[in-house]
């Protein structure tokens, strides 16, 4: 005969319980409460009793602790309830800018905040790195970066990136494409042959810069597969995820990849910490600087981003880009994915209105096949999603579901069956085929209008 195991909560249920108990504690003690969750998902309650310290063995505290542990088991922190007055550095928790408000304080009831501790912090929901100050150089850099993101892979994102780069270069811009698909780096379709890949890549910068050794890497190369037309002075540059070493050199890509996703302590004591977002930003900046040094400052930087809810996508969309193109196909899993993402963002209410204006939906590989209603249906689903999650009731966007320049209104890439089987890698003339140009025309011209003006000519 076996004893049945004690009831236990799964990951999501435990978090729900933790938040509920936090609310009860905020009421019972009349103090602000922060719920933390560690790397394994284990929750603790932090009660801010600094103004009126509670005895650690007070019956109220003990019973709250026991109830919390029972409700959240096995996702219970090592100390279920922690009193702020006993903490070494309470402001790390009670004043952290990474907190997400669950409920505000009202009357004698304290506020409740959640504070996530994951490997790379909370980049999906945290505040943008650089403050918004037009004319500021950091701001200008961000403004020129375009994130190309698809929740689902295989929607033609990389091809669209190449077509966009080519188009913008034809129109005279200096374009840099950065491959942020670090988990599955490949030969870019911007290069005619793999031998054109530079010696180092983004991953190299991340590991080298971590130990203060980022200078002198060879990060970028000219795109060769898409010759720029005419007299436009446009250029295409490419920065790979990982470089190709010289003959005889070793390069252990996996070993580097395993070491990049972390927030690092300051290199020199007293400096500010280096979260992953900042490190990735520095890697991209290094690529931009290199293009500027070899030729001129890039006017546009396309960040070809990994699919899914991945840390790199999180950082790129929320922190590093001035425009984020969200590739969608009209199927339930895509919408469900974006809904999950947007609901995360919504938790950071103070930054949502800034973020939402930087988003644009792209109807990827859209097979219109004679029915305009299919695009309208996609637009409507996108509208419903934005209206449910990111739009505010009184914003302009909410009053115009059919507007053509709202974040939700899809920019179509009209995919036709005649494109199936065409391989952009086989022929550099591919983008010049009339039907291929027609497919991307709305996409390229619309995105161009969303970009800042090129840098002025150097005098």
């Amino acid at each position, binding site marked *: 005969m076996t004893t049945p195991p004690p009831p236990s909560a799964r990951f999501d249920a435990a978090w729900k319980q933790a938040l509920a108990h936090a609310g009860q504690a905020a009421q019972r003690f009349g103090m602000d409460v922060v719920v933390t969750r560690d790397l394994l998902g284990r929750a603790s309650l932090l009660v801010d009793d600094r103004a009126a310290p509670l005895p650690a063995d007070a019956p109220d505290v003990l019973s709250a602790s026991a109830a919390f542990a029972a409700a959240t088991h096995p996702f219970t922190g090592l100390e279920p309830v922690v009193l702020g007055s006993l903490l070494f550095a309470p402001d790390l928790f009670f004043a952290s800018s990474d907190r997400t408000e669950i409920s505000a304080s009202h009357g004698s009831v304290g506020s409740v905040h959640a504070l996530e501790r994951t490997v790379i912090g909370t980049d999906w929901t945290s505040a943008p790195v650089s403050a918004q100050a037009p004319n500021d150089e950091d701001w200008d850099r961000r403004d020129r970066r375009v994130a190309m993101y698809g929740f689902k892979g295989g929607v033609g994102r990389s091809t669209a990136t190449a077509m966009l780069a080519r188009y913008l270069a034809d129109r005279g811009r200096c374009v840099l494409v950065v491959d942020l698909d670090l988990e599955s780096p490949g030969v870019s379709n911007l290069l005619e042959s793999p031998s054109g890949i530079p010696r180092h890549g983004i991953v190299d910068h991340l590991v080298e810069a971590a130990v203060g050794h980022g200078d002198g890497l060879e990060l970028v190369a000219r795109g060769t597969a898409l010759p720029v037309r005419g007299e436009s002075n446009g250029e295409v540059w490419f920065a790979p995820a990982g470089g190709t070493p010289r003959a005889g050199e070793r390069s252990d890509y996996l070993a580097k990849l395993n070491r990049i996703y972390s927030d690092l302590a300051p290199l020199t004591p007293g400096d500010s910490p280096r979260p992953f977002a900042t490190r990735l930003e520095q890697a991209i900046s290094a690529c931009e600087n290199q293009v500027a040094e070899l030729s001129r400052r890039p006017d546009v930087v396309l960040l070809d981003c990994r699919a899914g809810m991945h840390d790199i996508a999180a950082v790129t969309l929320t922190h590093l880009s001035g425009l984020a193109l969200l590739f969608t196909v009209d199927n339930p899993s895509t919408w469900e994915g974006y809904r999950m993402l947007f609901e995360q963002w*919504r938790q950071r209410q103070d930054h949502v209105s800034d973020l939402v204006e930087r988003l644009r939906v792209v109807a990827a590989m859209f097979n219109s096949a004679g029915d305009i*209603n299919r695009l309208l*249906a996609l637009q*409507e689903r996108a509208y*419903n999603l934005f209206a449910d999650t990111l739009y505010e009731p009184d914003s302009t966007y*909410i*009053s115009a*579901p059919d507007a053509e320049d709202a974040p939700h209104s899809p920019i179509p890439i009209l995919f036709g069956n005649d494109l199936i089987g065409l391989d952009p890698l086989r022929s550099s003339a591919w983008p010049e085929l009339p039907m291929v140009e027609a497919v991307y025309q709305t996409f390229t011209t619309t995105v161009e209008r*969303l970009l800042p003006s090129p840098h002025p000519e150097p005098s």
Partner: protein
Amino acid sequence: MTPLTADEYRTLIDRALEGAVDANTTEPDLRRLFTPSSHRLALAPDVTVVKGARGTGKTYWAKALTDPRLREIAAASYLMPKLRRVEIATGFAADRRADAAYPTKRVIARLMRDDEFDAVDFWFTVVLMALQVPEIAAIGDWPGRMSWVRDNPEALDDALQEADSTAHNDGMTRVLLFDALDHLHKDRTQADKLVSGLLEVALELRLTTTALRAKIFIRPDMYDSAPKKFADASKLTANTAELTWLRENLYGLFFHQLGNYDGPGAAEFRAATSMTGSWRDEGEGRFIAPTDVIADQTRQEAVFVDIAGPYMGTDRRKGLTYTWVPNHLQDGNEEVSPRTWLYSLREAAVVSAERYAGHEYALHYDAIRASLHGAARIRVEELTEDIAWAVAAVEKLEGGEVPMEPSLVIAYWDQGGLSAALQDLAKDNAQDGQEDDGGSGPRKPADLFAVLEELIDIGVLTRRLTTGAIDLPDVYRLYFNIGRRGGVSRKKS
């Protein structure tokens, strides 16, 4: 010449559009008459049916065609010399003169009451009156005239043939205009019957004469709902034109008004928009803009950006002014009435001068936003004149939120007593026979689901594609107290 300052632009817009926004009380005039390319076919003498929603310019063109000078302008602008060889008579219009060729509404209602007369006979009578055929003009009253037409089919044919050959020998085409058909009859079934008769007569003229033509300006939904159970009816449908206002037409209209204003600023505006060619001086103060200013969207956007700035806010992510304004004035059929359009721009100039005088552009983006409310009022006024029942139906949704389930719409109408209200409208001042009466009612006032469909037809309501819920375009919603569902309230940090 120095470019216009923001303030000079505001003054120019305010003054130049002052008359244009009262389009219904102002006759078309020589300087301001604008000839959008998409309206060319509508004026061709041999195009019988011209479809146009409320506010697209049916009455405007009907009036312009009756004025020889304005017709000459159209003939020149549209390269349509045939317009110089037409004689125009009016077979029906809203502003009836005492000596008109058609009876008052009250007389029509009486004539149609007992099914004694047929709608086809009625319109043949009107045609003969318009052609000033002596036999019919000699008869003193309408029942007498109609009896004559009914009882003398051969004399009718003879009279038509004679008028035809006279016109033909003179090298002229006699065009009979029919406008404001919303006001034929309060009861939509009767109105449909009358329209049906008119279409049959128009086709008859087309097929049996060479120089007599009808031109019928009509709302698309009225054209669709009129029964066409006569031979060769499809020939009419093949011969229709539509009055539409594409985005470039709207901007062309706006720029034309600015360049043709009779006062300070207009010459500077013409100079400022003459990069690709000068405005052509047509004499008598009339100027025609270079083609790209009235037809090329890229060029138009550049001109508008000088006036309103490029963005609907501080940067490009807020939307582009050039597309934003027309987008937000659209009804459910994606149509913008030119009067709403000009009103909105003028209002934006006035509000900019009051609240944002120091702004670098003439139109401030927040003033443009604010102008939508006034434009919505103008649009509802337009609707009230011809399709008053639609306004009554939307009013009953007050306090609700869209998108709204169709069943909820019906429930609002049930509770609000819409059916009774529609019946009242149909009776309302039916006896005075005046034209300012709100037009005919819906096709099936007793069937609320049919009323809903009809509102979608005329673009007052829309149906969301994926959910089937009922929505209301902003150009109507902003006037009525109807909210929009959705959005996440958040506190500002």
